[in-house]
């Protein structure tokens, strides 16, 4: 989001047609063989001749002023080739730009990649070293002397909002408040989203429920730590190999931060070992470039796992209040929320996305949402799969569950009664086009999962999720080889290996050639026009629009070749079933020509065949999903076991259905991790205590069951094949669905995340005390 829709943005209307390739499940997936043999090259697998190894010195303090940095001893260590700190990077003015689903401010980006006046979190980079070995680079870090003035810090979002809280930024006055506040505070911005008349809505309500929720930050937990290699030449050219979700955006940020021309920076995206929004931001890249420049050698930098946790963006920790009202018949009349999102050390959380999408699942007349973006002494937050949405769905979807129970209604029926549909006015602006939310609810209701009997301490929960799909700048090239095979060069990042094959299927469908005759590959920043990041579920949805556009241009060129050969006008040639044919009998009796035949003659008739797309895609179609989960609560340990899980989501059109199922399953399991285990734990000094996979517990294979999936297909009207983004919705419902299931199982409502054994045990104990007390009262 973050930018207004362009009137020049591309929409290609949906056309229903018989499909030959799209919707099949190819076994010759483009990336898979290299990934199962260990050949696939990720950033840390790349080695350049003469490369040095780079390391980062990080702040041990949550908040401190930097009095001085002395690198002289480190520089003198044999084998050290360069040391950089704040003095090696130009300061930046305030300037905002989109970076994935979140906005960045270059004044903060430069400070986050390398501290200037102060450090604002445990793990904040203070200096970096390049040396002939990793061991020497690590030794050099210990020789850098940093004098800190340690200052009071604040970790929790509610604490940070108090008037007496330590203020991170003396120049930060809450935006969105009129008049401008007199004093600076940690509240960077206040935002609102409103529809109808909220007071009238509550007056009409017969049941009103108001609850407060708190969530801890969770990390994307990609298994590949950040890694980059930079090669800065004496000619002033920088090449950077890196694991990124958007190499063009990284190029732009590197160029801006280092005051270089865009044309002198080339970013080559490597295979990506997971991102989930966490690889939308530069961390190592500018450091590696400057170290390379200073040392006249290529520099490779790879984060350790603890650096990933301490210094790359997790999600916001949040404090959320939800108040909703409905009639006894189950019609929601009012929906209100206050969202307090911590952004970490610098302003700019996922709050704008949460604020505008919090209630979008329901057809509502009266909505009021107020949100605050709050700075705290934690790493700057990054996007994480539907950024901001799971924590707010935790509140809304559990309040909806409570309302359904109060009304004596089934939670799915309650949702059906209020479901968003075509024509629903959202509180964030547009009216919805055709969407598949109702279908996901109906399919959930009919699913055999609901017939499964539940035992003692077992319960069932339902929740739904919504996420939009980004469009944005997208470019691609289709080259037709002299033998009639096709190569698509795409500029989005294929973050999980699915879009590469989806694009291949789409090009094959368009050209009318077999999938095996299309190869798709990623192009670096010099190969194509600008591509926005793979973020906001846009990878396949937007990338395929460019693939279609480029294919159609290649087809136009092939029709031109046929026309030249047949000596007719280009508009007298049509493309059908992979062949150029005369448009009608009156054109002449010409034998249709295949791609291979046309490719062979292309040179004579004007040159080789290619099609380019440089478009700004309007949008990728909103997505909705409904999840049903069964849990069993262990009353002795407080452990929650997931027994059964079913996920139903609208994909618009499933290009590669089995892969979509895989994304659904992966998103659901990430959501299960968020719900039950994952959290950032800081000590009283503001130091992260669990920066590793042993103590930051992501789900393992034995934690989860098989995840049942069903795909609903309500075509996106603005996409030629009806595709919607699908990547993010699956992570939204698990947290509330599991909370609802725990309540169904043992009667406790958990509103503090994560719902880990100690919290479950405490709630069970509190409930027992409460039950005993009320029984005692009844007995009197």
């Amino acid at each position, binding site marked *: 989001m973050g930018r207004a829709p362009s009137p020049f943005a591309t929409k290609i209307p949906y056309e229903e047609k018989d499909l030959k390739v799209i919707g099949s*499940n190819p*076994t010759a*997936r483009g*990336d*898979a*063989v*290299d*990934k*199962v*043999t*260990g*050949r*696939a*090259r*990720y950033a*840390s*697998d790349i*080695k350049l001749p003469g490369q040095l190894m780079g390391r980062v010195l990080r702040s041990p303090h949550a908040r401190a002023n930097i009095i001085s940095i002395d690198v002289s001893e480190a520089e003198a260590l044999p084998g050290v080739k360069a040391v950089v700190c704040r003095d090696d990077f130009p300061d930046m003015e305030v300037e905002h730009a989109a970076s994935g689903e979140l906005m960045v401010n270059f004044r903060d980006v430069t400070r986050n990649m390398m501290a200037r006046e102060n450090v604002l979190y445990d793990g904040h980079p203070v200096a970096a070293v390049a040396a002939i070995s990793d*061991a020497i680079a690590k030794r050099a870090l210990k020789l850098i002397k940093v004098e800190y003035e340690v200052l009071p810090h604040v970790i929790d979002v509610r604490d940070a909002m108090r008037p007496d809280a330590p203020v991170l930024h003396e120049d930060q006055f809450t935006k969105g408040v009129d008049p401008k506040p007199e004093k600076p505070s940690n509240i960077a911005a206040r935002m609102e989203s409103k529809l109808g008349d909220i007071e009238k809505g509550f007056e009409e309500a017969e049941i009103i429920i108001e609850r407060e929720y708190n969530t801890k930050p969770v990390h*994307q*937990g*990609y*298994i*590949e*730590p950040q890694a980059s290699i930079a090669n800065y030449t004496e000619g002033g050219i920088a090449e950077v190999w890196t694991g990124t979700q958007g190499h063009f955006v990284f190029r732009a940020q590197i160029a801006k931060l280092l005051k270089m021309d865009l044309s002198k920076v080339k970013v080559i995206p490597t*295979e*990506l*070992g*997971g*991102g*989930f929004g966490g690889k939308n931001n530069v961390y190592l890249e500018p450091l590696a470039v400057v170290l390379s420049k200073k040392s006249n050698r290529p520099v490779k930098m*790879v984060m*350790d*796992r603890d650096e990933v946790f301490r210094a790359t963006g997790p999600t916001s920790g949040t404090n959320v209040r939800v108040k909703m009202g409905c009639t006894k018949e189950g019609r929601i009349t009012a929906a209100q929320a206050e969202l307090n999102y911590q952004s970490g050390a610098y302003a700019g959380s996922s709050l704008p996305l949460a604020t505008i999408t919090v209630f979008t699942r329901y057809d509502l007349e009266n909505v009021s949402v107020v949100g605050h973006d709050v700075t705290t002494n934690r790493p700057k937050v990054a996007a994480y799969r539907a950024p901001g949405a799971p924590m707010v769905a935790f509140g809304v979807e559990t309040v909806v569950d409570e309302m359904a129970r109060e009304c004596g209604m089934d939670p799915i029926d309650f949702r059906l009664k209020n479901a968003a549909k075509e024509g629903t006015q959202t509180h964030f602006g547009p009216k919805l086009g055709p969407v598949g939310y109702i279908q996901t609810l109906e399919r959930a209701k009919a699913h055999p999962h609901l017939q499964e009997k539940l035992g003692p301490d077992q319960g069932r929960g339902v929740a739904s999720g919504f996420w939009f799909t980004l469009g944005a700048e997208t470019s691609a090239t289709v080259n037709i080889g002299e033998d009639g095979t096709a190569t698509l060069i795409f500029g989005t990042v294929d973050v*999980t*290996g*699915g879009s590469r094959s989806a694009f291949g299927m789409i090009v094959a469908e368009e050209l009318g050639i077999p999938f095996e005759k299309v190869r798709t590959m990623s192009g670096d920043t010099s190969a194509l026009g600008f591509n926005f990041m793979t973020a906001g579920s846009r990878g396949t949805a937007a990338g395929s629009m460019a693939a279609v556009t480029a294919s159609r241009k290649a087809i136009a060129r092939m029709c031109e070749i046929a026309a030249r050969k047949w000596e007719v006008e280009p508009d007298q040639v049509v493309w059908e079933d992979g062949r150029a044919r005369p448009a009608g009998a009156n054109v002449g009796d010409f034998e249709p020509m295949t791609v291979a035949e046309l490719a062979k003659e292309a040179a004579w008739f004007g040159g080789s065949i290619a099609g380019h797309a440089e478009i700004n895609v309007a949008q990728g179609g909103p997505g909705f999903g409904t999840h049903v989960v069964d849990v069993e609560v262990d009353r002795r340990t407080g452990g929650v076991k997931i027994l059964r899980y079913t996920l139903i989501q609208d994909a618009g059109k499933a290009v590669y259905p*089995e*892969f979509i*199922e*895989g*994304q659904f*399953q*992966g*998103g*659901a*399991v*990430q959501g299960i991790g968020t719900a039950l285990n994952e959290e950032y734990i800081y000590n009283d000094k503001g130091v992260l205590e669990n920066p*590793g*996979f*042993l103590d930051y517990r*992501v*789900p*393992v*294979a*034995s*934690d*989860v069951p*098989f*995840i049942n999936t069903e795909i609903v297909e309500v075509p996106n009207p603005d996409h030629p094949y009806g595709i919607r983004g699908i990547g993010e919705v699956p992570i939204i419902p698990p947290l509330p669905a599991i909370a609802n299931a725990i309540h169904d199982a043992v009667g406790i409502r958990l509103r503090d995340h994560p719902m880990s054994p100690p919290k479950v045990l405490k709630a069970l104990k509190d409930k027992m005390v409460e039950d005993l007390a009320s029984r005692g009262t009844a007995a009197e």
Partner: protein
Amino acid sequence: MAKQYVNTTINGDNHELLCDPTQTLLDVLRDQLDMTGTKEGCGTGDCGACSVTMDGVLVCSCLVMGVEANGKKVETIEGMADGDDLHPLQQKFIEHIALQCGICTPGLLVASKALLEENPDPTEEEIRYWLAGNLCRCTGYHKIIEAVQDAAREMRGA
């Protein structure tokens, strides 16, 4: 510290190496031998991305020192396929879409192979517990378990 002589067999090939005693087997594989198929996800034995076998025993190569490989037989992902013929597990991982980003895949394949060598007919639960040391953040494990089950069936000739 002086480097030590190490004589080890990796995927059937003999290697004579000089290893720094502080170097892990993972570092030796990736940095010294350029065998980058084995991945590093954590360096602390928590994620399983660096799984290899040493004398048939499944280990995290980040927790084994390079010098410990002296006189041992190490098997890595690079040795799993037989020329152009993928191992049934590799084939089934592709067919079942048991991989997305692929960073955990080499470790999962090595670990699954070790499982099937010990237990050719594992239950779903046995597979899930055996692979509990191999983190995957993309797939939710569903298709990985299916792929291992299917490969086990095929390898048993069932």
